[in-house]
């Protein structure tokens, strides 16, 4: 493999990591900071993508679609929090698992009801289509660069929100002792609704952006859910920095695994078998990575809590 290709693949790995971070950002907030196990995160991602595709098709404007995706997911998030999640904070974590599992079914089937079973069309807007040439002659899709930008912006925003603002502090306090923070005069109920809606909005935005270069269809949120959890746990729950680094690690491991493992096996195997074995191992790579990280650091790379 040529040097330039290797560099390009490293870039792809970083890029896919940032894309993962964008997909995981909402979950970082809801799961990492509020301490709520929300399996329906992927559904909110899907809601965003469908809202974007629907509005973009109706109005012809991707940007209106993007706005709609944020609004729709935030609204869905707020409704879900008020109607369901709010009743579960005091309960066992496991009740949250069951409730949000039920929400997955409701969202998926509800979306199918509204939009039918066929995948929707959503494509890169005119302004961001095509590619640019990076130094070294690497051609890179403009839209992907936009996704990278969005991922970085969200990372910085979240870092400031959670680490530096009073709201962030209060949310984390609520995670530690909800009853106590309320007894200090903080309206933790409303705060949680807001933060949950914000997390949902981020999921929705990721759904729209990532859905644009992938496919928009019912069930698109499920793989995202697992990946997002993997990213957050590797980084350490509650740490935005951790989530970002976790995402980059996962992105790199996945991409480089796919690219390099088959060639590694080719050294001592016949090509066809090597590609297949290499690919098999590559698909396990991120889970192996996660297991290794947790065995060595049981609280994730930057985890505050165990």
């Amino acid at each position, binding site marked *: 493999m040529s040097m330039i290709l290797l560099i390009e693949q490293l870039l792809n790995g970083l890029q896919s990591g940032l894309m993962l971070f964008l997909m995981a950002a909402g979950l970082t907030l809801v799961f990492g900071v509020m301490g709520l196990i929300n399996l329906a995160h992927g559904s909110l991602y899907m809601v965003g993508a469908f809202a974007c595709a629907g509005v973009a098709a109706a109005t012809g404007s991707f940007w209106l679609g993007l706005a709609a995706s944020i609004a729709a997911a935030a609204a869905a998030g707020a409704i879900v929090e008020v109607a369901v999640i709010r009743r579960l904070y005091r309960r066992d974590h496991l009740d949250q698992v069951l409730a949000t599992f039920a929400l997955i079914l409701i969202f998926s089937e509800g979306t199918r009801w509204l939009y039918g079973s066929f995948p929707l069309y959503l494509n890169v807007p005119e302004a961001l289509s095509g590619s640019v040439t990076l130094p070294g002659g690497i051609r890179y899709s403009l839209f992907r660069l936009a996704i990278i930008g969005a991922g970085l912006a969200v990372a910085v925003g979240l870092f400031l929100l959670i680490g530096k603002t*009073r709201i962030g502090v209060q949310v984390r306090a609520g995670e*530690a*002792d909800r009853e106590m923070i*309320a*007894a200090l*005069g903080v*309206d933790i109920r409303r705060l949680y609704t807001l933060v949950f809606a914000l997390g949902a909005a981020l999921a929705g935005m990721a759904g729209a952006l990532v859905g644009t270069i992938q496919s928009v269809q019912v069930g698109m949120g499920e793989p995202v859910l697992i990946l997002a959890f993997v990213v957050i746990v590797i980084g350490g729950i509650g740490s935005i920095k951790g989530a970002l680094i976790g995402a980059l690690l996962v992105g790199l491991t996945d991409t480089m695994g796919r690219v390099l493992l088959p060639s590694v096996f080719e050294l001592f195997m016949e090509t066809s078998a090597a590609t297949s074995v290499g690919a098999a191992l590559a698909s396990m790579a991120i889970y192996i990575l996660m297991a290794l990280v947790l065995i060595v650091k049981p609280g994730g790379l930057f985890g505050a809590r165990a």
Partner: protein
Amino acid sequence: MSALLDVEDLHAAYGASQALFGVSLRIEEGQALALMGRNGMGKTTTIACITRMMAASGGRISFAGHDLARLPSHKAARLGLGLVPEGRRAFAGLTVRENLMAAARKGEWTIEKVCDLFPRLAERARQRAETLSGGEQQMLVIGRALMTNPKLLILDEATEGLAPVVRAEIWAAIRELKAQGQSILVVDKSLRELAAVADDCVVLERGRDVWHGPPEALSGELAQRYLGV
């Protein structure tokens, strides 16, 4: 003039087991009331009802002219209740500074002022609360309650686990706060210290208020009977 806090015939239960069977108490503006009783008699439960962390099953609570009966606990707190809870309950994952920040509300108490009161906290500002020593945590939660600039400061065993010097300091601080006109509801086991701040005492026994009176009157045989001293 109506009292700052007026609790009448309070009843409360944990599930099926009743813990309060009619507790009444009043605190006037600027006064300090000591709530006393042996272990398990319902002091903490009474406080939980006042701060609306627990729903009373009967009786009336009014605070600063508001009926607390239907308010959620954050609204009750915003009326001016500042709680130092039993068992500390500092926000474990947050730093000292963040703990204080989380509770802050406008008023004369600021992080700086709290740190003046407890210099230890300034030294440990960036340490996570769960790794603080017990006494440091205790200082932190008192500071945290002050950060809300409360009309009524509620201290549930606030000097538990403090070194004598610090305890003396805290009592001095409490007396000072009192002198500045701060209203206080205090639960503590040290009669001597209580006597020095409290204007009034209420003794609980098995969820009932069995004795009201000034601290001086609670001595000898009475103290033996109600508190086992």
